[in-house]
């Protein structure tokens, strides 16, 4: 154990003395600004997505289709269309609260407390992950880590540290293409630094002057052989969403 410690120390010295010129370069990149630009690219006032959630639990693959309407960061409403069992299930997020409605029970149930940590519909996402309603640039302080070339693209890697202690993932790391302000991948860490989840953004397309991914792949790294793919088939930005979509009264048959 001690040797590991010494090695670590040594590598730290090595790092400081040899790479310090690079550090200066890094300072030049405004990490926070870059993150803001990414957020601006991804977020819009309102958004509609018709998509598929492909859940692979290692044994079986399941596909859910849903329509989602989002307004800002605080309000969103999804309506599941298939499979038959989930059809008509509605989820409404309002100011940090999540309700779920199922036609079968004809009830709206508040997903709160520990239920939030449960896997959402068997996926690698928890309801909490779903609830994530902040812009990264608002919730995290970004610092530049390094630059990495992947397939001839130089990605800027940013380390994000949460501003608020209550943020689920206290640290994240994002791979950003500074040119088009897109994210290649994101890693979510436990407070003490253990890598927990990995999200891949794929199939970027230009939609309404934004570069938007059509596919997101979530992986829970603590589990074996599971992943959830979110495919966006229809994406619309800045559309008018009727107000009642974001009211509790929508949660009925």
């Amino acid at each position, binding site marked *: 154990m001690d040797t590991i410690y010494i090695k670590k120390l040594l590598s730290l010295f090595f790092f400081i003395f040899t790479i310090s010129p690079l550090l200066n370069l890094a300072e030049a990149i405004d990490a926070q600004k870059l993150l803001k630009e990414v957020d601006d690219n991804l977020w819009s006032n309102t958004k509609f997505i018709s998509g598929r959630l492909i859940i692979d639990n290692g044994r079986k693959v399941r596909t859910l289709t849903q329509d989602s309407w989002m307004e800002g960061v605080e309000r969103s409403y999804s309506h599941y269309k298939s499979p038959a069992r989930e059809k008509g299930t509605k989820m409404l997020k309002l100011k940090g609260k999540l309700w779920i409605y199922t036609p079968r029970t004809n009830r709206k149930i508040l997903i709160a407390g520990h239920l939030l940590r449960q896997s959402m519909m068997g996926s690698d996402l928890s309801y909490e992950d779903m609830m994530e309603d902040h812009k990264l640039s608002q919730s995290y302080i970004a610092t530049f880590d390094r630059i990495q070339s992947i397939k001839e693209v130089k990605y800027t890697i940013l380390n994000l540290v949460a501003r608020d*202690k209550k943020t*689920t*993932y206290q640290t994240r790391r994002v791979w950003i293409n500074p040119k088009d302000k897109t994210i290649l991948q994101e890693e979510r860490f*436990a*407070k*003490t630094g253990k890598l*927990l989840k990995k999200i891949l953004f794929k199939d970027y397309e230009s939609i309404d002057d934004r570069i938007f991914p059509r596919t997101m792949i979530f992986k829970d790294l*603590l*589990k074996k052989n599971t992943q959830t793919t979110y495919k966006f088939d229809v994406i619309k930005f800045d559309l008018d969403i009727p107000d009642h979509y974001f009211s509790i009264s929508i949660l009925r048959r």
Partner: protein
Amino acid sequence: MNWDIAKKNFFRQGLRASLNVFVTAFSIIALIFMLSLLNGFQAQATRNVVNTDVGGGHYIAPGFDILSPTEWEDHTVKIPKSLSQLDDKDKAEVLVQQGQLYPNRRLYPVQIRGISMNQSLLKLPLDNLFNFQKPIEDLIPAVIGAKMAKKTHLNKGDILTLKWRDKSGAVDAKDILIIDVGDMLNPRVDDGVVWLRLDHLRFLTDRAEEVSWVAVRNYVGPILGFEYQSVELLMADLLSLWRQDRINSKILWAILMVLVCISVFNTQILNIFKRQKEIGTLMALGMEPKRIVRIFTLEGGLAAFWALFVAILLGLPFFIWFHSVGFDVSHLSESTLPIRETIYPDYQPLEIIYSLVIVFVLIVTAAWLPVKKITKMNPTMALRGRAIK
């Protein structure tokens, strides 16, 4: 006078008398043995639960329910001064949190239980945890029970991921090192429990000075902001199981006593049959029938007395020997009962005395019942050996 005659008669019976004495003596030994073993078993199991978990009761954070894992995080409290100032031998601070263990990268929900390392109230195999000096930046030292280890296929030295939430709700996870697999004796603190140092758990969850409960040696009066749960309440299930066992043992006891009484009863019947001439003679000599009954009953009593003596003579060394070696139930140690490898009988003097008194009374009654008909005997018939057919 009665005594003398009874004594002489008793010794004259020879084989028959000694048989009876032995049957009774063995029954007494078996009886005491059975009761003491049960006592020992229960006392030990109770002690194990007390030693590993219950202590002398818990001061528990209000609303905390060990059966509701999802609410553990919501029911922790800062330890009040009145409890924290107790001596380390009189209290054990415990913090319980929900966690997810990933043995073999499969989810296993666990209870993370942190316990203060300085406490000496509860006896747990956590010495290695206490002695672990390295900082926890790399690995968190943890101890699990043998039952848990078996279930999760984990061994000493294994490293795996544990996930939890801190006080603010942030996800946290780190690799833990199983520094020891201990025999917890009590499935309640073994099955699905990962033991950490309290200081580690408090640090990891950002819950300085917080506890879920404090196990205490003695009740120290009501404490504001805490609920006191007594030993009886904490062990209700086990205690009701014990009660059931006691009832069952009483039935065994009764069956055994019936056997002893039958033996004495029959001996007495044949005794009288064989000795009717003697009874007739005693009557002819002018002895009142009641007195003869007394003599014969006394003889039965003597048998009980001798049985007692033999039981002590044979039983005492056996009990002492057994108490030293115990009853090996090592194959039970991983079962659902909180019991150690070896059960030592627990001899309760008062209980033994009670039992012996009952045995004595029963035997004398069994000796008296058949002889009471002597009073109705016709002396002349008795003399000719024709009084009883």
